[in-house]
């Protein structure tokens, strides 16, 4: 049986709800329990060609910005891939809206997916203002909210993007009570399932800003790591302080300082200009 067949089978089992993820197991054990196998690649309906210029790792991979994302990626890989465990659920959030969470998540995901070692599933957990689809030019009705609310099979919501091994789960239909959804047992189960399904798959969650909405906080506690995006000249010092405090107890991996206006004459960056 080829690996693909096995994967298909697994997917089928998943769809039928036969094989729930092993609950309550410590990660270490789980990691070992699941054999190393690539996740199923859902059939690519059509190869999407997002032309959004902000997706630098896709559209302008030689730019210094793309390089920065790559740097971020490698740091992150180092931080999450320990010797005996793999912190594969990563949440991207920020203190206030419009700090560039989605773009950070997307660029990071693309950068990871472009590597041969990783498959990446990007989950748009920002049910309030879903924007992953928009950046990727995807038009899909079903998504995370449908899975949580209507019991839609998660496999049906996964969209292969054709960008490396990157798949996404869109936010789905708009809901009025994301907090309830995210704090539900179902959400927990869903995350567990996704997390342990494939050992080398990164799960990146794009979430709403932490200061404004409660669901992010509950979600943060279920994550292996939190990436905190700070955009220059947006959130105040106080906001960030508050947000960092709100994330206490979670695995705060680090900050991504976004949208920095850099001095072009700064030597540190002139190198890239020469390089490109």
């Amino acid at each position, binding site marked *: 049986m080829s690996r693909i067949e096995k994967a298909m089978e697994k997917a089928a089992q998943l769809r039928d709800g036969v094989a729930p993820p092993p609950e309550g197991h410590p990660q270490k054990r789980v990691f070992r329990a699941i054999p190393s196998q690539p996740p199923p690649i859902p059939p690519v309906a059509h190869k999407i060609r997002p032309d959004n*210029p*902000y997706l*630098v790792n896709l559209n302008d991979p030689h*730019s*210094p*910005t793309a390089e*920065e*994302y790559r*740097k*971020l990626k490698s*740091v*992150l890989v180092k931080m999450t891939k320990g010797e005996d465990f793999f912190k594969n659920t990563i949440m991207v959030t920020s203190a206030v809206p419009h700090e*560039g969470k989605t*773009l*950070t998540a997307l660029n990071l995901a693309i950068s990871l997916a472009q590597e041969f070692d990783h498959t990446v599933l990007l989950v748009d957990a920002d049910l309030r203002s879903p924007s992953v689809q928009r950046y990727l030019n995807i038009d899909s009705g079903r998504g995370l909210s449908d899975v949580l609310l209507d019991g839609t099979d998660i496999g049906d919501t996964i969209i292969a993007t054709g960008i490396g091994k990157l798949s996404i789960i869109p936010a789905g239909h708009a809901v009025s009570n994301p907090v309830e959804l995210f704090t539900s047992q179902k959400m927990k189960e869903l995350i567990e399932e996704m997390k342990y399904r494939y050992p080398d798959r990164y799960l990146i969650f794009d979430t709403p800003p932490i200061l404004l909405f409660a669901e992010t906080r509950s979600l943060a506690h279920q994550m292996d790591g939190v*990436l*905190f995006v*700070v*955009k*220059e*000249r*947006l*959130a*105040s*010092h*106080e906001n*960030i*302080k508050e947000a*960092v405090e709100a994330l206490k107890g979670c695995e*705060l*991996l*680090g*900050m*991504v*300082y*976004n*949208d*920095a*206006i*850099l*001095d072009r004459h700064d030597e540190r*960056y002139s190198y890239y200009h020469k390089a490109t």
Partner: protein
Amino acid sequence: MQSSELDFKKYRQLLIRRKELFVTLALLIMTAVTIVSFALPKIYEAKSTVFIEKNVISELVKGLTVSPSMEDTIKVLTYAITSRTLLAKTADSVDMNLAPNNNTETEEELVKKLQKNIVVQVKDKNLFIISYKDRNPRLAQDVVNTLVRLYIEENTSSKRGESYDATKFLSEQISAFKTKLDKAQDEVNAYKRAKGTAISIDEGKLFQDINASQQKLIDLEMRRRQLEGMRQVTKTTSDPLRSKLSALQKQLHELQAQYTDSYPGVLTVKTEIESIKEQMKTSGGGQALDSNELAKVDSEIAAIKISEGGLRRNIASNQALLRNIPAAKAELDKLELERNNQKNIYDQLFARHGQSEVSKQMEVQDKSTTFRVVDPAVLPTAPISPNRLAIMLFGIAGGLAGSFCVLLFLEQMDASVKDANFVKEFGVPVLAVIPHILNPREAAMQHKRATRLFTVAGVYFLFLLCFPAMELLGLNYVDKMITYVSPANLVQDVKGHLR
């Protein structure tokens, strides 16, 4: 150096980042200042130059006349011109207190306002520039001219009045002193009449007279004594015994001086004297005097005695006279001194009166210092304030500066994260610094937007520049427009139409 360069970079960054706000704010400020410059009330200033000249005549008659001091006039001019009475009069005569929308202003306030706006400048000691500022150019002109006219009138009339008063006073004093002088003269005359002898006699002569009389008296006395002696002698020489006795007694005295009493010569003489005394006793002192001779002597003595009495009386009267002379003379001197004093004053008064008469005539004929209005106030055409050009230019500079200050302030107020180092203090590692992604399409759009903004701003700025330019060229279209659309005029128009 390093930090200032850093600051400069920071400011440049700030400007670049918020260029739109900067431009908008700057233009807003400039517009506001321009509007204010037009909205500020226009203040007109009317000026009059007054020259205080000293007449030639006054130089000619210097010393003859007494003119009010020019220095004094100049000294008090500023105060005099801004005096309450004069200003009140001025306000009255230009009907300021009757002006519309002036009902609330009391005279006090009106005078204060005038005082505040009047400026008197002294130039070259006798050239005055009197200026007044008001919103109404015609009023400004009227006030200055009226003020100057009233001041000159008042000054002239007061000087005339002074001269009149001086002359009048002097003539009064002259008549008073004339009576006093006459009285003193009369007193002197009366005294002279009363004590004429005592005063007219020469003291030295009188003294000589007395001396001569005394000498004469002494002579007469001597003569009388002689005569009296002769009478005695006539009596004794007729007796030989007596003469012999006296000779013997004389001899005895001589001898006794040399010898003792027992000296024979002395004894002899003594006995001889005894014997003669015996003889004289026996003869019984026979009077054998010539009676004729005696009578003659006696009558002579009597005559002398009468003469002596006359002389003595003469001397006594003369001496009494002499004693009286100093007192009389002193009294006369006193009276004369008094008279002289009166006369002195009278003379001076009289001389002054003459001067004052001339002065009066000069004042009457306006021949002394005169105020000449060199330059009467003309209707001011251009307001002195507000200096719109300066205000507008200032507004342009202020707009830029103010806008920049607002940016700085906003930047200061902006508590947001401004650089990557800033977030390090949270103790969370900064995994990546993502530079600003330049989206060509968005950049192009922004550029287009900026271009549009700058174009609009540029055009608007040029439009704003038109106002200072108009001001510079002296075109007053805006003023005309303002007057045309001013609410008061509109109300008037409406009223006119209603009628």
